[in-house]
């Protein structure tokens, strides 16, 4: 290590870092928010990284050596004959492996838990002997059970191979999806979905999933030396739009898209938290420069270069970022693990999520914290240039120069204004997820602008303090002498209020706007659906008889059938809703009347704005979709606001959906009651019918009300804002501690001066009122500033959320704003009580004698 670098590190260790011990509370406050920022980043990256990595690993463990996958366009699956066509006409394919992928619901009377437990669900995989061509864990798992030739045709007809986490034992008889099967073997290891899986021979798998004659996909293993691109071209030609030819890893990409909104919203909160922690570090360093002025002057007198002092300050702040970032990493990992373990296996498909943190994540988090802290300190470090070495010759605190550092302030002001304008442009003009950075950009711009307006803000505090008569006038003098401290305190109040207002206001508006975008969802009295509440009923189809039975129930006025279907458009996944003329749905309410008429007549489709953006189309364009029955062309009749799901949502005529996607039936029913009907009685009847008519493969049918449906959607949105609420409280807590610390310090540093005042006859009451007046003035100006910043942040956040969710989030001020202001002011005054009492109780003689 070079001598200058070593000397610099030694200076930082001996002078800067040791000095921190005398300001423990201030250091801890700033450090805590850095820790939170780092932990949040890690938690977000770990949680969402785990989701996609778990899916990727699961798929990789199945596909093994396969380089291409021919996948069904929709939920109806693809014709099993496609595999034979590919085998016959594509010599470059070494293996063409048929795959069935579904869900195995293991009945409660056959699991280790015994009778009375709920069904256990695990992924169900089905294939034939060709699965041995895949070198993945599936082949290994199946091969481990002895080779399949060891099992007779009869055994394979109703026998399954399972992983150890299914709770089944070898030789056991189990009821799976309503069918009795025999467990042929339990393979060891947990590489395949953590050991929670079931494998059946193709015929049995098709029976268990009620997809006879159909496959979910075909995996292609190329011959050595055959280019994948060539293979893709040949297969695409053969498939001719009846299926999609994709990379086997496409499911992970689809999941990334599906979770992108909540992931990015949480990342936004993490970024804002990072900006706030940088602000608190800036405050700490700013005040440190002020309090260390004397020692810095001494160092300058001894010959220290200004550049060295600046570098030492930046090094000190880098230590903040490094230490805070590193402490946050294990906390973030813990938070991510808890989130992942809570979500694992809960889905209706039995997918086990395993925690996975990208290797780069801790590096990114720590680097982000270091950079944020160093960047924040750069402004504060400029003050070093104002320290004259001659100041070392005088004793006592040197009053801060009233002269503005004009160039720096102007530069900060202009840059801040430009950055704020940039944030607005991004939020209003940039569609999609990129708009998320606008929130953090705005926060940076505002802080720069407020730094530039330090003089003006402090002037306001002085004016307000003067309103509190005698003690207030002295408080005003103190404020004028220490503008840096006053600014730091009022900005802490402002930031706490702005973050609270902006984030909670935007969250509240998003919840109500999303409910608005789903207007119509709660119109039906009841839903009868093939999936439980909270999951979109895309499959399986309901039993055909169920609709007619429900129509016969006394009190039922009408039953409307509908389908939700997932459709693969290339590697993207979209959701399509099939509607009838009597359907009650948000799409029906949002579509212009003519577009609605045309859609129901089968003349086109209505797209959500997200889908239109995904496919790069607009109203009037013609779109070519691949369907199980071949390519179809359709016109985009309208684009509407619709809450983002997967890569987008569309609506079409139910008849057309059934025809194109080869799915006759319904996945949900809308039930309307007659006037005066007893809702509870009707519901009970619906539940009886649902229990008696499970869907294909024995899947249970769910009954819930329209009100429950919309409430469930609201809860999902609120959950995604949970991080936001946590951030608010953390920032408010940090602000309160920072306030207390600053006010305490101001008393300690002015000990001699306060002692002189007392010696001159000021009463204890006068002294304590002086401290309180200072706090009150800061609180008032800080609150007003916070209201202004927070109000704009709230509006901007609404625009950002509109861009990312493609739902128009309506701005609406929240009464809770007043609560934030009241709490902030209360904390200010509460935080000033202890310093005020301390100031009033100083020993006069000791205070005057103190140097």
């Amino acid at each position, binding site marked *: 290590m070079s*001598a200058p670098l070593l000397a610099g590190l030694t200076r930082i260790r001996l*002078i800067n870092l040791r000095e921190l011990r005398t300001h423990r509370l201030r250091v801890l406050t700033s450090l805590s928010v850095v820790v939170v920022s780092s932990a949040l980043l890690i938690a977000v990256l770990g949680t969402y990284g785990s989701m996609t990595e778990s899916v990727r690993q699961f798929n990789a463990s199945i596909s093994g050596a396969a380089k291409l996958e021919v996948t069904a366009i929709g939920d109806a699956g693809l014709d099993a004959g496609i595999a034979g066509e590919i085998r016959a006409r594509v010599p470059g394919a070494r293996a063409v492996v048929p795959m069935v992928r579904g869900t195995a619901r293991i009945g409660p009377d056959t699991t280790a838990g015994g009778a009375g437990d709920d069904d256990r669900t695990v992924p169900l995989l089905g294939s034939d002997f060709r699965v041995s061509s895949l070198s993945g864990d599936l082949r290994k798992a199946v091969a481990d059970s002895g080779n399949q030739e060891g099992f007779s045709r009869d055994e394979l007809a109703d026998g399954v191979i399972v992983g150890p986490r299914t709770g089944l034992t070898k030789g056991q008889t189990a009821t799976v999806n309503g069918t009795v099967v025999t467990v042929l073997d339990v393979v060891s290891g947990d590489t395949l979905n953590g050991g929670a899986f079931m494998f059946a021979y193709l015929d049995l798998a098709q029976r268990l999933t009620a997809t006879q004659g159909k496959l979910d996909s075909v995996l292609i293993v190329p011959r050595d030396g055959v280019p994948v691109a060539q293979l893709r071209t040949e297969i695409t030609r053969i498939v001719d739009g009846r299926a999609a030819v994709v990379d086997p890893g496409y499911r992970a990409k689809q999941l990334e898209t599906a979770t992108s909104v909540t992931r990015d919203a949480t990342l936004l909160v993490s970024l804002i938290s990072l900006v706030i922690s940088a602000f608190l570090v800036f405050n700490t360093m700013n005040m440190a420069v002020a309090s260390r002025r004397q020692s810095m002057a001494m160092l300058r007198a001894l010959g220290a270069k200004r550049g060295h002092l600046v570098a030492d300050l930046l090094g000190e702040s880098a230590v903040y970022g490094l230490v805070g970032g590193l402490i946050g990493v294990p906390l973030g990992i813990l938070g991510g693990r808890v989130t992942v373990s809570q979500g694992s296996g809960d889905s209706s498909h039995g997918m086990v999520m395993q925690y996975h943190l990208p290797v780069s994540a801790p590096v990114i988090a720590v680097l982000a914290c270091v950079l944020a802290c160093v960047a924040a300190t750069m402004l504060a470090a400029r003050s070093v240039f104002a320290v004259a*070495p*001659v100041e*070392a010759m005088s004793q006592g605190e040197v009053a801060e120069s009233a002269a503005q550092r004009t160039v720096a302030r102007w530069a900060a002001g202009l840059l801040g204004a430009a950055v704020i304008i940039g944030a607005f442009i991004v939020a209003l003009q940039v569609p999609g997820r990129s708009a998320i950075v606008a929130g953090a950009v705005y926060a940076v711009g505002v802080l720069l602008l407020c730094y530039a307006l330090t003089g003006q803000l402090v002037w306001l505090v002085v004016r307000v303090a003067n309103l509190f008569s005698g003690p207030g006038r002295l408080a005003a003098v103190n404020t004028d002498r220490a503008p840096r401290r006053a600014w730091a305190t009022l900005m802490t109040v402002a930031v706490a209020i702005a973050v609270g207002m902006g984030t909670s206001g935007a969250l509240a508006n998003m919840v109500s706007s999303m409910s608005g975008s789903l207007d119509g969802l709660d119109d039906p009295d009841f839903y009868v659906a093939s999936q439980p509440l909270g999951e979109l009923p895309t499959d399986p189809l309901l039993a055909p008889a169920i609709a007619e039975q429900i129509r016969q129930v006394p009190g039922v006025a009408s039953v409307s059938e509908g389908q939700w279907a997932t459709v693969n458009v290339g590697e993207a996944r979209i959701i399509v809703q099939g509607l009838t003329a009597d359907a009650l749905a948000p799409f029906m309410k949002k579509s212009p009347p003519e577009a609605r008429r045309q859609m129901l007549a089968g003349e086109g489709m209505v797209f959500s704005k997200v889908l239109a953006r995904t496919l790069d189309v607009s109203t009037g364009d013609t779109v070519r979709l691949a369907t199980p029955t071949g390519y179809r062309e359709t016109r985009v009749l309208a684009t509407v606001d619709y809450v983002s799901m997967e890569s987008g949502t569309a609506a079409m005529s139910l008849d057309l959906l059934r025809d194109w996607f080869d799915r006759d039936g319904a996945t949900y029913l809308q039930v309307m009651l007659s006037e005066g009907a007893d809702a509870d009685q009707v519901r009970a009847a619906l539940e009886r019918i649902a229990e008696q008519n499970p869907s294909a493969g024995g899947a249970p049918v769910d009954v819930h009300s329209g009100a429950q449906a919309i409430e469930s959607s609201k809860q999902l949105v609120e959950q995604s804002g949970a991080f936001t609420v946590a951030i608010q409280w953390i920032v408010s807590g940090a602000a309160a501690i920072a306030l207390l610390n600053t006010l305490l310090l101001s008393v300690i540093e002015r000990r001699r001066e306060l002692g002189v005042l007392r010696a001159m006859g000021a009463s204890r009451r006068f002294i304590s009122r002086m401290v309180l007046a200072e706090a009150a003035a800061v609180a008032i100006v800080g609150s007003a500033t916070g209201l202004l910043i927070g109000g704009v942040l709230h509006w901007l956040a609404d625009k950002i959320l509109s861009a990312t969710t493609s739902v128009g989030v309506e701005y609406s001020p929240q009464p809770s704003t007043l609560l934030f202001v009241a709490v902030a002011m209360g904390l200010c005054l509460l935080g000033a009580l202890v310093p005020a009492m301390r100031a009033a109780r100083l020993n006069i003689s000791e205070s005057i004698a103190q140097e």
Partner: protein
Amino acid sequence: MGDQTVRALDGLDLTLPGGQFASVVGPSGAGKSTLLHVLGALDTPTSGTIIVDGVDLGSLDDTEASAFRRTRVGFIFQFFNLVPTMSAWENVALPRLLDSQSLRKAKPRAVELLERVGLGDRIDHRPAELSGGQMQRVAIARSLIMDPAILLADEPTGNLDSKTGQSVLELLGEVAHDREREAGRLVVMVTHDAGAAAFADTTITVRDGRVA
């Protein structure tokens, strides 16, 4: 100061050779401290030339002035100005650290200087554990570590009792007459105490910004 122009030094003409202990006395506001400031490149004169140890101080930029203060001048402050979080030897070695040198390599010389000023048994003590006189001795040792040609002391005994002050003044005298240094060392002490001034070889009286 503020909007007013104050001539702290007005046509002062002075030559001080090395190897002597000079005291600068005068009434309050005479310009004593200002003289010290310009000699130490802490301040620059509005007009005139200051040559210290062959260097024209008026021609120096901030970096050069910092280097001058670091290597050619030693400062002794009235209120000691030790770093409270550093030990005695670390405080003595501080100028070397500011010169981007290794602290560890500076330690032997720092310890030697502390022994010279009678604090060989206090090398690891922090300022809070030292008396006023001991702190000033540490400051003197610090001022010597770069072997400067000039030491500038601003009221070095102003915060000490008479007995301790006397020992500090004797030490300054020894430093000025340091036979180990061929060119000698100039010690300039500003004081308002006539008794302290008596320890010096020469006394310069400054009045109204001029040498009286």
